[in-house]
Structures are given as C-alpha cells and as structure tokens.
C-alpha cells in the first residue's frame, strides 16, 4: 500500500486528495489517514530524499527540505549556460516561423522537441499561447528575448522574409497538421 501511494504521488506531480487516493486504491476514505500516518513516520526521516506532506485533506510528495540548496542548484543548472545546438535550432525555428506548433517544429527538426521547448519556456526566451485555428499551443519569441537581441520586431531578423515563407518548409508543415497515427 505504501509503495503504491508513493508511486501515485510521484507520477501525479501535485497534491492528491485523500478522497482520490481512496478511490485509486479501492479503499475506504476513512482508512487513509491511518495509512498516511504510518507512511509519514516511515518516509520523513532526517536523511530521506523525499518527504510526504499531508495538509488539508491532500497529500504531496516533495523533496526533503534538508536538500533545498542542492535542489535549487538543479533548477539553476537547467536554465543557465549557453544553448546547445538543438536548443538553438529550435529557437531559430520559433523565431523565423512563429507562430508555430510543436508538431511543426518537430517536422522541421526531424526530432522530438518536448524537453527543449519546455526549457526555452523556463528561460523566458519563448512564449506559449493557445491558437484557436490550430487547436493547440503555438510558440513565439518573447518580448524580453527580442529586446535582448536588440531588434524591435521579429521581422528585422536577417533573411526573415526568405525563411519565413520558404515554400518547401511550408509544404512540409502542411503534412504536420495530419494527426499522428
């Protein structure tokens, strides 16, 4: 039971209500608090990696506060330093072809880009918004990033018109709108 709860909390990534836990475990909600008590006693030790937080009828898995400094170092590493070549390419596609969807970016790069897009978002280089026509999020360069590049508008990028309207890429993107099988 304990291990099942940890697996649920881990994959959910957010606080899970006691009611929901009971439902998932096919147990009675009234039994859960006692189970959680034991779990907390077992998990939340001075040196354990993860803590079980019970608060206001919800449970969440977090890292042990003792490692707070290490953990903040992890997120700092993720958004610092130079861009890798795949990151730079993805950013270039978003700058020249915006507004562009993830499947479209992937058609051009020929590689899955989920993690890269997420990282560019976290660094504030790009922005995400919902597109009514494409029915999925589209990405554009952020204002902060344009300012950083020292250009007033994205169209001021070198070769903008040429790259933005390239016919062969346009044709490739038409196919990206076909849903994946």
């Amino acid at each position, binding site marked *: 039971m304990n291990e099942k709860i940890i697996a649920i909390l*881990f*994959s959910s990534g957010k606080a899970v209500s006691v009611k929901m836990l009971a439902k998932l475990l096919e147990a009675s909600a009234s039994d859960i608090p006692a189970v959680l008590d034991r779990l907390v006693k077992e998990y939340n030790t001075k040196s354990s990696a993860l803590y079980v937080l019970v608060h206001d009828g919800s449970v969440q898995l977090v890292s042990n506060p003792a490692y707070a400094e290490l953990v903040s170092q992890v997120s700092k590493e993720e958004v*610092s330093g*130079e861009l890798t070549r795949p990151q730079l390419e993805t950013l270039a596609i978003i*700058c020249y072809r915006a507004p562009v969807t993830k499947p479209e970016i992937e058609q051009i790069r*020929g590689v899955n880009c989920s993690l890269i897009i997420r990282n560019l978002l976290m660094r*504030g*280089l790009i922005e995400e918004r919902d597109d009514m026509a494409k029915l999925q999020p589209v990405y554009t360069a952020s204002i902060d*990033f344009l300012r950083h*590049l020292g250009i007033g508008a994205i169209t001021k990028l070198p070769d903008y018109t040429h790259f933005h309207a390239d016919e062969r890429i346009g044709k490739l993107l038409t196919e990206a709108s076909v849903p994946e099988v």
Partner: protein
Amino acid sequence: MSFEAKLDAFSGPLQILLELIENKELEITNVSLAKVTDDYLVYLEKQDVPSEELADFLTIAARLILIKSHALLPEIKLEEDADALASQLKLYKEFVTAAEHLERIYGEGRISFARGRTPAVTEEIIFAPPSNVSIQSLQIAFLYLMKRLEPFFALRQVSMQKVVSVQERIKHIHEALKARAMMTFRDITAGAQSKLDVVVSFLALLELTKQRLVKVVQGVAFGEIELKRVD
C-alpha cells in the same frame, strides 16, 4: 495518410521473401531462394509497392533472378559471395525475432511513468538569456537546418522520378511496339545505364503483359525474350 505514415506500414522486401520461404517450409538456402523467385516477381507485379521502396524491391529481384539463373544453368557465374542474400535473410530473420520480443514487452503496457509536472507556464520564469545567442547565430542555425533538410527534400524528388520511370518505360515500350510488331527484351535494355535500369524495363514488361498489351514469348529458359504486339 502522410508520406511517412504510408511507408511506415509497408513490409520490406526481405519480409516478403522470408514469408514466401516460410510458407513453403523451406530452409534459407540458395536453392530455396531460387524456388521462390517466381513468387516474389508475382508479388511485385500484383502489389502496389510504394515508389519510395521500389528500388530496394527491384534490387532484391535482380539478385533473386541471378540466383535462379545459377540454379538452372550452373555455368552462369555468381558474384564473389554466392550466399550473400541467404546470409542477409538469415540475419534479418534474427531481428524479426528480436522485434517480436519488443512487440510483446511494449504491448504489456508495463510503463514506468516520469514524475508528473505542473505546466511550465505556471512555474516561475526567470529571463535567462544565453551568451551564445545573437541574430547571426539564429540565422546560421536556420540555414543549417535548411541544409540538413536538403537530402530529405531530394529523397521525395527521387521517389517521384522512380514512379515516372516505370510508367515512362511502359509508354516507351508501347510506343516502340506500335512502330513494329515485334522486338526483343535486349532491344529495350540496349541503352540500360545500370542493373536497376534493366529491372525497371522488366517490370514495365510485366505490367504491359498484365494489361494484355503485349504478348511475351521465351523459346528456351534464359533465351531471348520476344515481345509481340497484341492487335
């Protein structure tokens, strides 16, 4: 269906060959390959092989025809490695088994999930411009991407040309037969640039026979193939 999805679902030439041999419960040997050559050619004729894969199918056809010629007429010399196709097929068979393993595990749905995440947008975003990004590096990155897509665009172009080539060959043979009632296969392949070219002609010939536009006569095995116009 998209260009990629269509190809992804199509069986390769070795898969077909393996199925033909296994249907007859034969071992993978040169003798077996000779035995299934006709079946393979019939398959090629009947199936709509995607033009992108036609060259690979024809290559195997050419090698099969060579092996069969050797089985029938041992004086025909095989190339340096006589068992290459049999070896390749045995190797392929190994990986068919490996693919079955993979399919089984994948189908079990025993997935290890990653840690759940809150959507990135709600997380704290710190503007952290990298030092290696400028308008020039973005331009170069995009140019590099376009260059990398070149072979991909070219591949589609070539595929298209291949379809055209079989159809053109059909037209060419048909036209030639309008001028004279009879010709030989050697006449058609006289200007052939490569083995592939010969096989393309052969395929065109099969197609014409199927459409009953020509009648084909071969006096003796591996003798001259004669084409006659069907009036």
